């Protein structure tokens, strides 16, 4: 029995030994191995005694956050494809080296003393290696070319497949007729170079995908299910089924859609609707997954039907929006559409011209095929993928995970940026706004006390105290009273942190969209205000985006008063409040119809359709699952600066890509006339092809650096 776990909090390589040693004593666990690259722990268990809870709590005691993976099927399919590509690459590399060995002997022999018999033998040997190897390792291109042709489309795979096939066919023909030249090595080298571009592309995607999967696994909340006999079991919330009864503690996320059976509370639904003002709920009310239960314990009956209706609407919108995006044509494909006909016509004209000036049909065909081989878009096909890989790597270092390479081109064309407010411009988790009622010492005590609380608002207090540079240690013997707060005895005096009534502190009725927590230590008491806070660098980032000429808008589902406040603060004149998911999506489509290229940045379920409809989209890693799935890229951390880095790096990436196409064009301008006038020997073809590929790859390295990048 196997179980994979995502592990967060690994900072040094000592963790490998620490974790594996700690787990070696867990009963039933036969093997635990930490993958340091992907930050995943794979464990093997004796089936009869499978029980991961002690292992998870062991790791949590060591200070790591752990989460099991549930569904990984899609990923392993992608993994299999990457591995297949790698296998093709290795086969073409092996065959290429061996054929090259024979080719070099022939080239050397041709100018010295090789006998025609030996040359034929070497050519046949080359054919023996090259034909099966090309048939195997060329498959990725052949399949895609066939699919493209069937759909009446033209991609780079079509000229590649034609080039490879013709090169091999002509080489066999020439070999059979005892000719001096054959192009087996060129065909294999072509496959090798092109495959290396694709393998790199997939390796990059795998890296970001596994990082994103780790993030997701860590975010799946645990639900407390009430069993028939009244026991409470903790299960991952995606294992819940319709009809299950679950308990939702105050201060936790609602793990599933459902109807309230008992209890009253305030629900904050900012992730779903964008609205930050809490709503009161009572038995019979419907609550949605992803909303936040503030102050009362609730019993909920899970309703799959409810989740279906809400999600179905949003998913339908996402789907409609995504189909419009799939019409985007990548630069490489646009080039291919122009390139393939030009090259094929050039080859045909060459053949006819040679016949016209008196060459034999055989000679004319040989020259025409040489034109096709030399123009086969080796550098051209590498031009985009290499840049995509380099740019994705640079973005990864700036805390941005991208979903696919082609978003780089779309992202580079952006001229309008739309921000969602909650969780995007503001921090996703509530933070401390005002604690002026407490002395620094009292705040520090509150922070230490808050460490023992499970309430999310408590975390805001810990974070603030930590930011001041103090190392916090929890008090011992802290009591948590669910729904009220935490208390403990410090130096003989009771300290309490929690609900104002629990601490006997008078709280204002109108708290202006903030929550308040009270702290009492003996006679000393005061209120701490916690709420939505703008990301620390939001003002600077928005300003520099404006300085770069972007049009900035805010579209929010929240109330006008709150949105206006944020917009005024950030100096953004265009904003719209109280928008539904559909309105956001329609607004965006209108902008696009006016010719604007829109980047949508949002985290909530309500943003998902708009993210899918935008030219390009970005979501914070704290966003809802559906939202992240609809976004082109995900950024992590508390800063907003990734938005700026993303735009700078993708623009640079696109520029380098276009340069690369230029370089490939220059190569063709030099090489094609040589081929047309029959100056191309296999030696020149080999040198020219690898030379151009290397130049393009080296140029791509420049995409790592760009002006205006954050340090």
């Amino acid at each position, binding site marked *: 029995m196997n179980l994979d776990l995502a592990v967060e909090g690994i900072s040094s390589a000592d963790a490998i030994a620490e974790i594996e040693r700690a787990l*070696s004593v867990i009963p039933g666990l036969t093997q635990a191995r930490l993958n340091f690259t992907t930050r995943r722990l794979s464990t093997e268990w004796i089936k009869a005694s499978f029980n991961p809870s002690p292992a998870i709590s062991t790791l949590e005691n060591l200070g790591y956050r752990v989460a099991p993976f549930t569904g990984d099927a899609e990923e392993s399919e992608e993994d299999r494809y990457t591995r297949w590509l790698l296998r093709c690459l290795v086969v073409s590399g*092996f065959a290429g080296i061996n054929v090259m060995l024979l080719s070099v002997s022939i080239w050397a022999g041709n100018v010295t003393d090789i006998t025609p018999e030996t040359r034929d033998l070497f050519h046949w040997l080359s054919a023996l290696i090259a034909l099966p190897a090309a048939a195997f390792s060329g498959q990725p291109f052949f399949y895609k070319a066939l699919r493209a042709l069937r759909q009446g489309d033209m991609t780079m795979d079509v000229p590649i497949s034609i080039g490879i096939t013709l090169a091999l066919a002509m080489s066999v023909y020439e070999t059979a007729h005892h000719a001096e030249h054959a192009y087996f090595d060129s065909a294999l080298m072509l496959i090798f170079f092109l495959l290396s571009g694709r393998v790199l592309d997939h390796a990059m995607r795998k890296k970001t995908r596994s990082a994103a999967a780790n993030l997701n696994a860590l975010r799946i909340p645990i639900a407390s299910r009430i069993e028939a006999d009244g026991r409470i079991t903790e299960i991952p919330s995606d294992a819940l089924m319709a009809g299950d009864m679950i308990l939702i503690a105050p201060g936790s996320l609602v793990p599933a859609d459902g109807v309230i059976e008992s209890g009253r509370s305030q629900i904050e639904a900012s992730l779903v609707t964008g609205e930050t003002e809490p709503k009161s709920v009572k038995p019979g009310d419907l609550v949605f997954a992803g909303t936040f239960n503030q102050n009362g314990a609730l019993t909920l009956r899970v309703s799959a039907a409810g989740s279906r209706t809400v999600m179905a609407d949003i998913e339908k919108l996402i789907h409609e929006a995504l189909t419009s995006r799939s019409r985007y044509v990548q630069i490489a494909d646009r080039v291919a559409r122009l390139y393939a006909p030009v090259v094929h016509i050039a080859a045909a004209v060459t053949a006819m011209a040679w016949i016209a000036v008196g060459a034999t049909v055989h000679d004319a065909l040989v020259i025409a095929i040489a034109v096709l081989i030399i123009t086969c878009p080796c550098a051209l096909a590498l031009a985009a993928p290499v840049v995509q890989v380099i740019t994705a790597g640079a973005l990864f270092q700036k805390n941005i995970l991208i979903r696919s390479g082609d978003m780089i081109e779309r992202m580079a064309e952006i001229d309008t940026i739309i921000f969602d407010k909650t969780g995007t411009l503001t921090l996703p988790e509530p933070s401390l706004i005002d604690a002026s009622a407490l002395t620094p010492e009292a705040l520090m005590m509150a922070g230490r006390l808050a460490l023992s609380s499970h309430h999310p608002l408590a975390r805001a207090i810990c974070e603030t105290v930590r930011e001041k540079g103090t190392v916090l240690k929890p008090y011992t013997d802290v009591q948590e009273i669910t729904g009220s707060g935490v208390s403990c005895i410090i130096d003989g005096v009771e300290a309490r942190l929690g609900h104002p009534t629990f601490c006997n502190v008078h709280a204002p009725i109108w708290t202006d969209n903030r929550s308040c927590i009270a702290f009492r230590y003996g006679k000393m008491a005061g209120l701490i205000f916690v709420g939505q806070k703008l990301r620390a660098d939001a003002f600077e980032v928005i300003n520099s985006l404006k300085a770069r000429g972007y049009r900035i808008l805010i579209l929010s589902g929240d109330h006008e008063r709150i949105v206006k406040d944020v917009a005024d603060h950030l100096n953004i004149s265009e904003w719209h409040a109280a928008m539904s998911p559909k309105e956001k999506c329609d607004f965006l489509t209108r902008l696009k119809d006016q010719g604007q290229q829109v980047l949508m940045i949002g985290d909530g379920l309500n943003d998902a359709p708009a993210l899918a409809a935008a030219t390009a989209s970005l979501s914070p890693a704290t966003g809802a699952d559906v939202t992240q799935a609809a976004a082109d890229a995900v950024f992590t951390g508390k800063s907003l600066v990734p938005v700026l880095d993303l735009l700078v790096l993708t623009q640079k990436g696109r520029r380098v890509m276009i340069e690369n196409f230029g370089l490939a064009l220059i190569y063709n301008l030099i090489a094609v006339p040589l081929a047309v006038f029959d100056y191309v020997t296999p030696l020149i073809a080999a040198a020219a092809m690898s030379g151009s590929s290397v130049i393009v790859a080296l140029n791509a390295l420049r995409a790592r650096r760009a002006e205006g990048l954050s340090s």
Partner: protein
Amino acid sequence: MTILLYLVPAALGLGLLALAAFMWSLKSGQFEDLDGAAYRILNDDDVRSE
């Protein structure tokens, strides 16, 4: 030129051997964790005293 009879199969055989070795290493997951292996050599936990 009879030397070719030995050398060509030898060259191809060695190449195939390398190819097989790579395929095996790929299959056995040696490229799954490229960073961890460098550190693993530094800890002796896997040496068990039986």
